């Protein structure tokens, strides 16, 4: 697992869960993989073991992991669950994006124009490489 560069103004256990979900989506973690013990993970990211415990319990509760006695904790999520999470996280980002743009007074059409321009720029940057 990667070093967690957490935002100190948000609940850390939630950020641990998000970090975990992102790794599943990116494919750096796959179904059946063993994840670090709570203690190792806490030490790796320098976070209170009780906080890590809370995150691990939550991961298990929502069905992303399972703990096998004497063997450790494993990724239980299947591909359907992972794509559902991916969809959910993308929706969250979009909700926030549209909310903020609306509050700045952008119309739907203006938003579409901005997005198109950005996408073109990004494409250009990639072909220039």
């Amino acid at each position, binding site marked *: 697992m990667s070093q967690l560069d957490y935002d100190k*103004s948000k609940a850390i256990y939630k950020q641990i869960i998000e970090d975990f979900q992102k790794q599943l989506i990116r494919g750096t973690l796959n179904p059946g993989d063993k994840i670090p013990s709570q203690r190792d993970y806490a*030490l790796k990211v320098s976070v209170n073991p009780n906080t890590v415990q809370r995150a691990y319990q939550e991961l298990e509760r929502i069905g992303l992991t399972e703990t096998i006695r004497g063997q450790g904790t494993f990724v239980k999520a299947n591909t359907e669950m992972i794509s559902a999470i991916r969809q959910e996280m993308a929706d969250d980002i979009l909700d926030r994006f549209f909310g903020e743009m609306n509050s700045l007074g952008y119309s739907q059409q203006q938003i579409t124009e901005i997005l198109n321009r950005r996408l073109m720029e990004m494409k250009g940057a990639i072909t220039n490489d």
Partner: protein
Amino acid sequence: MIEFDHVGKRFGNVQALDHLNLQFSPGKIIGLFGPNGAGKSTAMKMIAGLNQPDSGHVLVDGQKPRQSRDKIAFLPEIDYLYGWWTLKQAADFMRSFYADWDDNKYTELLGFLNLREDMKIGKISKGQRAKCKLLLTVSRRAPYLLLDEPLSGIDILTREEIINTLIRDFREGEQTIIISTHEINDVESLVDEVFFIDQGRIVVSGSAEELRMTKGLSLVEIMKEAFRNVQQ
């Protein structure tokens, strides 16, 4: 469980603790935060039995602190070890007094902290001395660890080592760690319960995660906000 019940303590003209009420629940890493002179050290010394309340009372598992000395491992802010001791002599001394001394833990942490037993306590750097103090405190399997400003005046790498030692060593449910500090940023992710104290009173307290969620602020920001309100 450690309880402060309407505890008052005065030193000359200074009201160090002012009807302080609080409960440290077991199995947590607790932060006692506040500016210099807020009453943190006085409260820590009181739990360790080195100080006594003028009014109210402090109880450690229902007993007076002076009857609970073998349950408490106290790391004072000042250098409290004999300068002529080697680390080995200091460890031998502690081993004779505390039944909860754990030699395996001591040996393991000695390596982890890059310390050597032949180091003379009076002749090593401040950071190394801080690590020695930590080693001697956490090598006990004491139910309560009291760390008074364990990070102050110590370089950033040593701070990380100290924090990682605490995380590595913390036994969930069995041990309660109380850390007093005015440098909250370093222990932001380490503590689960926090008490912000100023002029001998609790200003804000609660679970670190709940406070972050409800306020959307880091603990450092919460402290700044709390003390702005106090001063107004």
